[in-house]
Each structure stands twice: as structure tokens, then as C-alpha cells.
């Protein structure tokens, strides 16, 4: 595995940062159309989450016992659910839950995990082994099992769900970043930097972190998708957010499965919303990584 280290210090900015950014974005869109599409969908999702109360045709909690399980029609574009609530409105509001949970879990999980992983790789020796052991213990539990355990202790509800999803993510992030950071640690220039007396912090920040940027960003986007999926799974099992909150996973539960044959729109649309959101995050992350990973730069 040939690794070409990137020395951030040598990268001199000649152009104004804002222009550099804009050029990078244009370049990205041109060269990686898939990623651009993904990014657009992500932006759309965020927009919907922010403006749900403006664009939703109905109150997501408003029941209509006269129109239970109604087919998609002009009045209800995506039909109604078992209580007569508008499916479209609930999906739009559901994106709020998804985005909040997704971003919170992904950022906290990936960042905390990355810091732990890099520190562990950098300091090596006993500390590394200890952290490895602790991470191993958490890794030994499947994601959903750990999430279940946290929910069992803390109870259901949005904040607890975020915690339940973040905690299992941290060791995974640590594992991935550690293996990337390990390869860097062995590089001669890191030894040189240490010999030159650079502080630990500077070495970590300037030399090691940039080289784990690629896996970090991939992880971030992957975690975003995974968090949304996990929240949906937990809600589906009845351990996530509770009724009558609008949440995609919650919409797939109970009546949606029971009436799947006679009212399939209840199960199809929320599932589609989940898939689309996660798909977009991953598409974007995939292309982002291709763009940023120095090892794959097709100069």
C-alpha cells in the first residue's frame, strides 16, 4: 500500500479562501455528478426539515376518523394512515426527527471516536492497548443491541435515542480512524517532527488528523445514514420516539404492517423517505471521499 503523506503546512493558499471554496464546489459538481445529486437531495432534506410547518398541507397530529386508511387522492397526496392523519405531512415533519437525530449522532459519534482513535494510535503503548480493550468490549455488541440496552436503562424519547445511537458509534469511529492513523504514525516525517520537539497536539492536528480526514468524512456521512436507519429501527421496535410524534420509523410500525395489503401507502412512502435520505448522504459522502482522498487523486 503506497501512501503519499500530505503535509498541510506545505499547502500554500495563494487565492482568497472563499474563491477557493467556490471553485472546489464547482469542480466537484462537474467531476462528480453523482455526489452533486446526493448533496442536492441532502440539502433538500434539510430544507424540508426546516420549513415543514410552512409546506405541510395538514397538521401531522390532526386525526380524521372519517378518512381513515384513505387512498392517495387530491385531498391527501400520499393517503392517510390508520387514524386519518395525512401521510405526506407526517413524512415532511418526520424529516425533522431524522435530521436532528442524524446530525447529532453522526457529529458527536464520529468526532469523539476520531479523537479517541487518533490519540490511541499516536500515544501507542499501554494507553493504546487500554483504549483498544475498552473499545473492543463495546464493539463486541452489535449496534442495535447496545442501542437497545441504552434505551432500556434510560427509557424512550428523542434525547435518549440520540444517546443510544451515539454510544455504539464511538468505538467504531475509533477503530477506523485508529487504523488509518497507525499507518501515518510509522511514517518517518512524524518521527522527525517528534525529534524536532513539536508538541503532541501540533503533530496530531497538523500531520495525523489531515490524513484521517478522508476516513473521518466518509464515516461522518456513513454515520449520518446509519443514525437515521438506527432511529428508524428503534422506533419500529417501539423503543424510539413515541406516538404521536411524526417519525419515519414510527410510521412503519403497527398499522402499516397490519394493513400492508389493503393500505400499502402507509408502509411504502415512509420507507422510501428513509431510503432516499440515507442514499443521498451516502452518495454525497462517497463522492466527497473520492474527491478528498489524496491517495485516489487522479492528478
Amino acid at each position, binding site marked *: 500500500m503506497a501512501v503519499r503523506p500530505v503535509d498541510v503546512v506545505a499547502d500554500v493558499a495563494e487565492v482568497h479562501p472563499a474563491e477557493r471554496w467556490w471553485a472546489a464546489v464547482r469542480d466537484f459538481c462537474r467531476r462528480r455528478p453523482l455526489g452533486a445529486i446526493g448533496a442536492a437531495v441532502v440539502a433538500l432534506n434539510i430544507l424540508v426539515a426546516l420549513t415543514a410547518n410552512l409546506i405541510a398541507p395538514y397538521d401531522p*397530529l390532526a*386525526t380524521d*376518523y372519517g378518512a*381513515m*386508511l384513505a387512498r392517495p387522492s387530491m385531498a391527501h397526496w400520499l393517503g392517510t394512515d*390508520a*387514524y*386519518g392523519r395525512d401521510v405526506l405531512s407526517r413524512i415532511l415533519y418526520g424529516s425533522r426527527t431524522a435530521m436532528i437525530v442524524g446530525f447529532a449522532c453522526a457529529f458527536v459519534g464520529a468526532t469523539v471516536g476520531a479523537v479517541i482513535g487518533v490519540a490511541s494510535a499516536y500515544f501507542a503503548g499501554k494507553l493504546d492497548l487500554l483504549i483498544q480493550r475498552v473499545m473492543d468490549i463495546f464493539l463486541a455488541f452489535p449496534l442495535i443491541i447496545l442501542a437497545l440496552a441504552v434505551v*432500556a436503562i434510560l*427509557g*424512550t*424519547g428523542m434525547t435518549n435515542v440520540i444517546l443510544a445511537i451515539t454510544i455504539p458509534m464511538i468505538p467504531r469511529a475509533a477503530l477506523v480512524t485508529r487504523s488509518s492513523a497507525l499507518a501515518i504514525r510509522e511514517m518517518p516525517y512524524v518521527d522527525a517532527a517528534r525529534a524536532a520537539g513539536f508538541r503532541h497536539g501540533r503533530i496530531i492536528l497538523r500531520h495525523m488528523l489531515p490524513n484521517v480526514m478522508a476516513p473521518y468524512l466518509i464515516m461522518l456521512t456513513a454515520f449520518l445514514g446509519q443514525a437515521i436507519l438506527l432511529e428508524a429501527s428503534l422506533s419500529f421496535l*417501539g*423503543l424510539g420516539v*413515541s*406516538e*404521536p410524534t411524526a417519525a419515519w420509523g414510527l410510521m412503519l*410500525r*403497527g*398499522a402499516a*404492517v*397490519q*394493513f400492508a*395489503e*389493503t393500505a400499502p401507502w402507509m408502509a411504502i412512502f415512509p420507507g422510501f423517505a428513509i431510503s432516499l435520505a440515507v442514499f443521498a448522504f451516502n452518495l454525497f459522502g462517497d463522492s466527497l471521499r473520492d474527491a478528498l482522498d489524496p491517495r485516489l487523486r487522479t492528478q
Partner: protein
Amino acid sequence: MNRRAVVIALLIGLAAIPAIAQEKPRSGGELVFVVPSEPPSYDAHQEETFGLIHPMAPHYSTLLRVDPFDKTGTKPVGDVAESWTVSRDGLVYTFKLRHGVRFHDGSELTSKDVKASYDKILNPPAGVKSLRKDAYLAVQAVEAPDPYTLVVKLKYPETSILLNLASPWNWIYKADLLAKDPRWYEKNVMGSGPFVFVEHVRGSHWVGKKNPNYWDKGKPYLDGYRALFVKDSAAQVAAIRGERAMIQFRGFSPAERDSLTAALGPKITVQESPWDCVLMVAMHHDKKPFSDKRVRRALTLALDRYQGSQALSKIAIVKEVAGIQVPGTPYATPPAELEKLAGYGRDIKKSREEARRLLREAGVPDGFSFTFKNRGIPMPYEPVGVWLIDQWRQVGLNVRQEVIEASAYHPMLKRGDFEVAMDFQCGFVVEPDLDLPRFMSHSDANYGKHKDTVIDDLISRQGRVTDIEERKKILRILEKRLLDEEVHILYTLQWHRIIPHNSKVKGWTITPSHYLNNQLDTVWLAE
């Protein structure tokens, strides 16, 4: 000659009518049914779950049982008891037992065995639980003066004792086996019922075969039965749909019934009945603002029970609008009377206006928020919870739902760690004496912690009155005080039992309880 031929023809004709009207039971065949859960142990005196009753009840007899042909499930008839007499003061019940009832090992069942079984229930030895001990507080002693006579002596007259003794949980065990090891029945089967135990494969099935020496000659009709343990309801529906199983004795949801009838048409027969289970709303009387009975009254006035019944019965296993007794049973309040109680009126607008007014008076601001705790079981807790929150919204209450896992729910209720929470009750037979004691002020099940001596008095009084009409009067007064004047508790909607089964299954009548009518001796299979 001519006249005689006419008479004979008439007789034949008359004989034919009942034969057409009621098919003759056919012997033979194996009944295959699905059971959602497995028996944790084999001792009915120590268990609470239908997962024990459904596969195992056919192995045992009881002293009395609830008439399997009575749809209200409230008539006691003899099982091992052939007949009984009651003393004039209502304190001594003398039962004459049948002769020739045999355990499956050949030994005869006598009053000694009945007494030993009841002694175990009323006074369990150390280390042995008895879950229904408290139901027999009125019983002073059970005696067996001779092998075919059992005497039950009461401390005070209790109208419901016969029905209580017809409990499906009071299996008669062999006295000798109990004497050797009172815990023998936790892991073993030895009964006198219509079916003999064949095998139990954990996680898979339970098999029983016909008892050739059953006391009721000619019965059982079936050659045997096989209970398949299938946890998931979708899998149960699939089994019945694919005709791999014929019936499930607990109940299905409306959606499941509809999919079965749509798929199998006339091959499916649906039996429905109000269910002896109900969800109630407990309000903590020591926590503001629920200590104020105006607020409690507002909570019940907000509920449009009739619309809820219509709507929820399409998606959940609830239906009937009920008070303290299951509709259709002897002590249930007639609907016209029920409408007079708070929250049961037909004019929902008026009710909700009054609710808003009461809340204002009590100082509860519009948009007031509180947490409603619900049990983490999908059906029907979720739909009823969603409905309750929606209804309370209509009177300006902003309710958050917190779902508590089932295993932590009961401890939460006991601790009183709630403002408003879902309460629930299931019984095996509809009897005020079984349904009401929980509302006594000192009862462990009084989670709302109300203290009302009038209610306590009414509850004990109604149990000792022997005249039915008199008893009904007291129950009406009790209901009014409980649900309307003091609003100690809210009844939501009665559960609704739906049993879609293969049309071949005959001789089984639905009752309000899924613990009743499971001995399978009256069941037969058509061609």
C-alpha cells in the same frame, strides 16, 4: 295403516328438523391450533398466562366450570361436580361429585383430590405460590366428608363463590402426588381431563390425545390436538390462511380478520364478542392538578367514546363502550343508563364545553402540558393512547406520551411515578367480585391512590347481597360515584375479541374471556 304412515312420516319429519338445524358432532380428527406463548411452568395455580391454559387445560378437570355454550361466560356448571346444594344462610355449599372420574394413570378422582388441590390454592405450602389465594378470602374451609362429597364453608355469604370456584385455573391435582411433592405439578402433567398428555417440544408444539376413559361418555369428539407455538401474529395469520392451523384462541386484530375473510371466504367463520379486558386511565390523586376532581371530570368528558368505538374498532381490538362490567353480561349497565354518566353522553360538543369550563375553573391554563405514561405493548395500548392524546387535545390539553417498557411498567405504577397512566385489567370471568376489589382504597392495585370509604363500603356490600336486582342497584350507585361523581378512574373502551377460525371447527363458542372454554371436549371437526 294410512294414519299410521302419516304419523310415522310426521315423526320422521319432526326428527329431521333438529338434525338439519344442528349438525351432529362427528368424531375424529386432530385439531391444530396456534398459541402465541408457551407455558413457563405446568402448574396453573402458580401461573397467569393463557400460554398455559390453551395447550394444557384439556388435560385437567375442575370442580365447576363456566358453561362452554354460554356466550356471556357467566354461568357455572359442574365439571367434576355433578350437582350442589346451598344452605339457607348461604354459608355452606355441598357438592356431589361424579363417580368414575379417573386420572390418566387410572386412579379414581375423589373428594380427597379436590380438597388437596384447593388446600394448595388457599393455603400453599412454603415456597409454593398461589396467585389466586386472595380471591377466596370468604372461604373458611374445604372439607371432604366422604369420597364423593365436597363441602365448602364460607365466613360470610358471597354470591359469586360458585363462579369463583368455576375458575379455569383451579385444576384438580392428585392428592397423593401433592403430598409427596407439592411442586411436582410445576414440571409434570397428571390430570383427569378429556385429553392425555403426549409431548411438549419446547419452542415448537404441544400434543394431546383423546382420553378413552373420560367420564363424559362419547366425548371428546376429537382424536387429539396439536398446539403450535407461534409467537408472531403475522405468522399465526399465515398459518390459518395456509390452512396449516385451524384456530387461535386468544384473538386477532380487525385487519387480520379482514385479510383472512378476504383470502378464504366461506372457509373462515368469525366469532366476535366483547372481551373481559379493558384499558383504564389512572390519575394520581396526590398530584396536582389531578387531585382536583374537576380536572379528572374534564379528562373523561373530553372523550368521544362513541366515535372512538366506531373508529378504533376498525384498527384495534377495542370496541364496546362500557362501564364497570362487560356489556351483555348480567350486571352490565344498559346503554341508555350509561349515557347519563360523565363522558358517556352523546352530545360531545356539550361535554367538551363543560370540560373546558371545568379546566378553567380549576385553574388549568389552555395548552397545559402533562405526561401520559403508556405500556410498551402495541395492541391495543398504542392506538388507544394515540386516541386519548388526540381527544385531550380537543379540550386544549397538550399531552406528551412516554412509553414504558412492559417489564418496568408495573413497578412504575406501584411506585406512583406518574401523573396520568394507562391502567388495565383482564379477568377470566365477568363478575363484580373479581373486577371491583381493586378499587378499594387500600388495594394494592389502587394506583391512583384514591381514598373513598363510600366506594369501599359499596364494594363489600354488593358482594354479600343475594338478590340480583338489589345487587344491580348497588352497582349502579357504585358506578356513578366511581366514574361520574368522583371520577376516580376513566374507562376507555372495552376490548373486542375476534376469533376467525376455519369453518371446520365446530362446537366451540366464544366467550368474553380467552381463559375460558379451552378444555376442547365439546369441539369437533366437520368434513
